[in-house]
């Protein structure tokens, strides 16, 4: 697919990269991509590619809408024809509804109806990302369709989230009340989706309470940002601390954090601009490894910096999270520890970049793939 020149090298290259992550057979994007001998090598086997594909199409469809383009539109139609019925995860359906709504696709009404009919006892069993994606999808659906019949279910979702996935004392969201291991811990991704869904709901429904929680939690999260601009991965929602910094993901630094930082900047919250700049500059070597995370030829963004694990990574993470929680302290990025690069790239990352930066005209340096100098 030929990508036209754009004022933003970032967007142009991101679209090109996605086209190199694309599988013509099932109209899906890759689960994971690496560069081997200067060539992109994709993994199309992992079933998570379905979620990543939805995420990628979301970014592309938003881009198309803003720039009046038709990239991947036929592919998306074919993806829906083949894969709509195979999307089983409720969270994925929520994100799909979001995508369908912004392009006023014929499937959006049916999907919104399906999601609005899910009973509370099933919604409560979802995890934070899933319920927030459903909430986002339904809110976006209402925003575009003005289907008043959806308002009751959207309000129900808001109350369900605030009653079951929200720690009133710290303002942090809760990953899942069902999970005994995870109930005190929440990931950065979960926090991002919670904030974004609160913000969009607040804007569409003029809900001042949601807006206040958005502002207050955003300030708390900004205050937990690392000195080098990094975003911690794992948080204790009862103590409002970072219990594990790693893996520090490029997608958090260049896209997902801005899902709440850009709205926060529009609201005039203090310190946001610096937070954005630090977050982006992390990718240009302002990190513990002084590593340039973005390479331009071929275009590629290294997924993360992670700790070299002593034992199985997940087990070590859980241990570290519990230890820091017991000690009631923030995790630290200690220079002498051994850190390694995770040299893959996932398609959803690029999808989020395109989504976030399509309608963001500031930070021209980053659009030109350069470090931002104040």
């Amino acid at each position, binding site marked *: 697919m030929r990508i036209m020149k754009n004022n933003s090298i970032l967007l142009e290259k991101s679209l090109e990269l996605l086209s190199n992550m694309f599988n013509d057979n099932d109209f899906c994007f890759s689960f994971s991509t690496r560069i081997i001998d200067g060539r992109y090598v994709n993994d199309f086997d992992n079933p998570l590619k379905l979620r990543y594909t939805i995420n990628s199409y979301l970014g592309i469809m938003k881009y198309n809408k803003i720039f009046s383009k038709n990239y991947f539109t036929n592919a998306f139609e074919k993806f829906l024809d083949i894969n709509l019925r195979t999307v089983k995860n409720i969270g994925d359906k929520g994100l799909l509804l979001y995508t369908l709504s912004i392009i006023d696709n014929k499937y959006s009404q049916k999907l919104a109806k399906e999601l609005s009919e899910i009973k509370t006892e099933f919604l409560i069993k979802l995890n934070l990302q899933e319920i927030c994606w459903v909430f986002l999808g339904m809110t976006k659906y209402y925003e575009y369709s003005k289907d008043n019949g959806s308002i009751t279910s959207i309000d129900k979702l808001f109350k369900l989230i*605030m009653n079951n996935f929200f*720690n*009133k*004392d*710290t*303002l942090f969201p809760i990953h899942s009340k069902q999970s005994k291991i995870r109930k005190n811990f929440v990931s950065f991704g979960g926090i991002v989706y919670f904030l974004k869904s609160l913000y969009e709901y607040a804007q569409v429904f*003029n*809900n*001042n*309470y949601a807006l*206040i929680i958005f502002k*207050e939690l955003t300030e*708390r999260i900004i205050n937990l940002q690392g000195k080098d601009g990094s975003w911690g991965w794992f948080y204790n929602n009862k103590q*409002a601390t970072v219990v594990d910094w790693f893996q520090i993901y490029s997608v958090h630094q260049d896209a997902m954090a801005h899902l709440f930082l850009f709205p926060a900047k529009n609201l005039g919250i203090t310190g946001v601009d610096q937070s954005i700049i630090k977050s982006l500059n992390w990718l240009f070597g302002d990190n513990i490894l002084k590593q340039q995370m973005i390479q331009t030829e071929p275009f590629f963004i290294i997924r993360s910096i992670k700790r070299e694990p002593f034992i199985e990574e997940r087990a070590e993470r859980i241990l570290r999270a519990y230890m820091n929680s017991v000690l009631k302290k923030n995790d630290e990025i200690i220079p002498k520890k051994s850190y390694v690069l995770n040299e893959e790239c996932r398609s959803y990352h690029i999808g989020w970049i395109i989504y976030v930066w399509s309608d963001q005209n500031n930070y021209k340096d980053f659009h030109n793939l350069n470090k931002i100098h104040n």
Partner: protein
Amino acid sequence: MKIVILSSFPKFDKLQHKVIFLTEVLKKNYISDLILIYSHKSLFDHYKELKKRLHQIKLKARTNNVNLLEVANRESLENLAKKHGLMIYKFDRFSDRKCIELLKDYNCDLAINFSGEYIPKTILDIPKHGVISAHYGKLPEIRGGDSIRWTIYLNFPMYVSHFFLTNVIDMGDIALLSKVTVKKGDSILTIRKKCQQKALEGHLKILDKIYFGQLELVKQYPEMGSTYYRMGKYLAKKVDEILRNNLYAYYEE
């Protein structure tokens, strides 16, 4: 005029503004009869409530030099009602079938909600004029829980709003708005006491207005305000600091 007072947790019901209200309302010669209905009558309900409020009670005692023994020895609403020979009825919940039947048989003109509990729709429809309650915050702008704290946080003037209950929280017609004077040095607890005083004064005014046919109601619409929810520790602490540092915008001398 026949009125019902709705309250809860009879063994803890010692708030002075309710006792004063009862004393004053019985002086009104147009009140032909009055009964007191309680919800949450069981010892287990009282135990759960005490557990929930223990921290608040200790904090009140510590920060306001309140003598808990003195509070425990105060006259309760129930005792005062008994002294005046009023009928008192107790139920587990207002939604109990027998409670609803009692209210229907009693055929009152107005029910006054002092319970702080959710009043089911089946009860709301029974009194001739409805069920009136006092909300410690300005309606329609500030609906929902922790309204005193939200008023301070949002830098709104402090009001007590008397309104008729509907099945949607804090959305009923507004009967009276009463400004509450907040002075430098006031804490949440002292502001709440002032609100309680305005609440009882407002209920008495409204009774007069109903009796003399002077009641005017203002309708609320959803878009006129926002609903807020109970504040947790982080935001509550922020509000306490606003008051401690005298940063609230609506102090009066």
